[in-house]
């Protein structure tokens, strides 16, 4: 595939801001989504010049947003309402051990695997992040996992 040129940040931001905001509202509620939104796009700005191509930008920024929401959930006290509904924070360290392997996956599978097993997103959300369907997200994650298993075997 030809490398896709990275668009000016304004275009990237305008294209994905509403989807990212909606994603954060679903994860941590409207009130906390506001700070998380700003943090997400500031982090995106920091990483933006080092992107090598403009493919899967939505999956990339969804991954950042999800990480921001997870960090926010860790800081929030457990009894506080609107706690992160990413269920298995305990499994994150285990996933972290796999992350360097996931780096070698094709872009789309990598995003699906990271969002599914790293952040426990639903396939519907991953589909939105990949700008495709829930079913395509499921397939990308499962073929990514098969590829990882083969590599580990």
């Amino acid at each position: 595939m030809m490398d896709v040129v990275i668009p000016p940040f304004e275009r990237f931001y305008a294209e994905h801001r509403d989807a990212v905001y909606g994603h954060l509202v679903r994860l941590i509620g409207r009130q906390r989504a506001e700070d998380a939104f700003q943090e997400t796009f500031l982090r995106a700005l920091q990483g933006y010049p080092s992107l090598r191509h403009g493919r899967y930008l939505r999956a990339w920024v969804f991954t950042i947003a999800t990480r921001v929401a997870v960090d926010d959930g860790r800081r929030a006290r457990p009894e506080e309402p609107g706690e992160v509904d990413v269920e298995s924070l305990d499994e994150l360290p285990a996933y972290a051990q796999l992350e360097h392997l996931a780096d070698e996956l094709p872009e789309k599978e990598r995003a699906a695997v990271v969002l599914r097993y790293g952040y426990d997103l639903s396939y519907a959300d991953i589909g939105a992040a990949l700008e495709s369907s829930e079913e395509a997200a499921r397939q990308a994650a499962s073929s990514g996992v098969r590829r990882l298993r083969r590599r580990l075997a």
Partner: protein
Amino acid sequence: MNVVPEALDHRFREAAAALGLLDVLYDVADTPVGPLLLAITERGLCRISFDPEPERETESLAREFGVRVLREPRSVDPVRRELDEYFEGRRRSFDLEIDLGPRSAFTRLVLDELARVPYGDVTTYGSLAARAGNPRAARAVGTIMNRNPIPIVLPCHRVVGSTGNLVGYGGGLHRKRLLLDLEEAPV
């Protein structure tokens, strides 16, 4: 569908500017010669464009100055203010830092000389070429005027043909006429 609240959108843009994370900040200003895109870097004013379609201009700004291009009205206010004063006839020269970006030495020299042509005065392509050290480069100077990244502030509207005809203008001849009339130039 959730839409980002306007206040939040503004807050992000201002934070990005305040943290110095941007290569280029821009906005579109309404002026008597139509909407103008105004863009700055941390070094100064880097673009004034008559193209009312900012999208097209952000591509070229990204190529020249870096991909972190964001619309941020407040940062551009000093430029907007000076232009307003100019169009109201209250300002004859601009006190703005300029960032020409990656341009050849000759282009810089010519634009530097151009900046010295006073308000209400006109000069010719040939005379500008001579002042930049190459009297035979009138045509090259014409091309440089046509591609002037910062029209109005770098006053290429003050450059005319040797017989006093207006020749051409990147923003359209009617705008050149309007600017010369505003300055009550003798052409």
